């Protein structure tokens, strides 16, 4: 599947949730879609899944627009952080509806996962706890086997053990049947090793799209005496910097080896940190 995002803008009244965003996602990768609250992640995913229209620009999936396009949306499954299902439905009926909608639906997997997460098939959605409702979302998303599966903060209320289970199953499923998975989350530290490519949105704009391994090799935090660090970063792209007592740490695009050869200390930057530094420049 190929997703082309072209000059995408979405306004809510005067507010622009997305501003002229363009990028391409292609192939069976696990994408991490990151950004602060209000960065436009959910709006993007809603347009991608064909739930809402853009104000300007477009998203093309294999050349077609997703809105009101049943043939296309049956290959896209979006699981949001809540209210994915009608409150009066029983768990088994939720699964049934999904099985009608998604031609790729895997009922066996769904039933297995229901057992793993200890859900009752006959319970109504409204009687489920927050964590159980999240589990149901995860089950529906995984069992849909949709070629594009999108999880938007799917684990509100899930405890650490249940989240770990989700990561395990997600990887297992991904290995068995490669598909495009887009995972948007604030718990970046927990999942960043699973990302193949990372996108960061900030105030409706795309500030970064890069392979996760490249980020690990090509960004670093350089520390040393202020003058030395300043000299070193003069011709470099600086993400952020801070100083204390004559010492400076600069977060830059560059390799650790390079910094070491200048006699400066350098450490890698975890993706979570990188996102914070990339997105905090304009106001906190």
């Amino acid at each position, binding site marked *: 599947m190929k997703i082309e995002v072209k000059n995408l803008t979405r306004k809510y009244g005067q507010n622009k949730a997305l501003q002229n965003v363009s990028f391409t996602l292609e192939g069976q*990768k*696990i994408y991490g879609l990151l950004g602060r609250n209000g960065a436009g992640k959910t709006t993007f995913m809603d347009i991608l899944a064909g739930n809402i229209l853009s104000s300007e620009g477009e998203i093309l999936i294999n050349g077609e627009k997703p809105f009101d396009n049943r043939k296309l949306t049956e290959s896209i499954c979006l699981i949001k952080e809540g209210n994915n299902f009608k409150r009066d439905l029983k768990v088994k009926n939720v699964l049934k509806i999904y099985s009608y909608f998604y031609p790729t639906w895997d009922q066996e997997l769904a039933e297995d996962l229901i057992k793993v997460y200890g859900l009752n098939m006959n319970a109504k959605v409204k009687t489920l706890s927050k964590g159980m409702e999240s589990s149901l979302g995860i089950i529906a998303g995984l069992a849909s086997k949709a070629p594009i599966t999108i999880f938007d903060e799917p684990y509100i209320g899930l405890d650490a053990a249940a989240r*770990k289970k989700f*990561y*395990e199953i997600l*990887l*297992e499923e*991904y*290995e068995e049947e490669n598909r495009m998975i887009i995972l948007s989350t604030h718990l970046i*530290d927990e999942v*960043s*090793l*699973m*990302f*193949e490519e990372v996108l960061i949105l900030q105030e409706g704009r795309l500030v970064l799209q890069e392979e*996760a*391994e490249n980020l*690990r*090799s090509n960004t670093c935090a350089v520390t040393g005496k202020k003058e030395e660090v300043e000299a070193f970063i003069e011709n470099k792209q600086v993400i952020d910097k801070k100083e204390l007592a004559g010492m400076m740490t600069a977060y830059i695009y560059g390799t650790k080896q390079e910094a070491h050869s200048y*006699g400066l200390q350098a*450490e*890698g*930057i*975890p*993706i979570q940190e990188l996102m914070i530094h990339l997105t905090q420049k304009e106001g906190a």
Partner: protein
Amino acid sequence: MKNMLDENKPIFLQIKEQIEDSIINDSLKPDDRVPSTNELAAYYKINPATAAKGINELVTESILVKRRGVGMFVTENAKNILIEKRKESFYQNYVLPLKDEAGKLHISKKELLEMVEREDEQN
């Protein structure tokens, strides 16, 4: 095998180093099967493509050999190749930082050598 990976370093390199370490300390011997990409991905909860990148580099360096349909295996020469490679990086990775830190602390070359020898005697 380490339990956790360091998120600050490229993951494929760490996967590579883990397997190299296991070969150097004889946990993996010639002809042993090494964990598959999927096994590594599941164990460390990492992207399988990343694990594959580490494994593939080891194949390129003749540390591992692929037997179609069976898996990846340690080559006869793997340990020798690795030891030679590690020796080359030993100076860069250990000796230089040691001298660097010693310089900052005004430890003379003589004192440094004495420390190394003292360590020998204690063992």
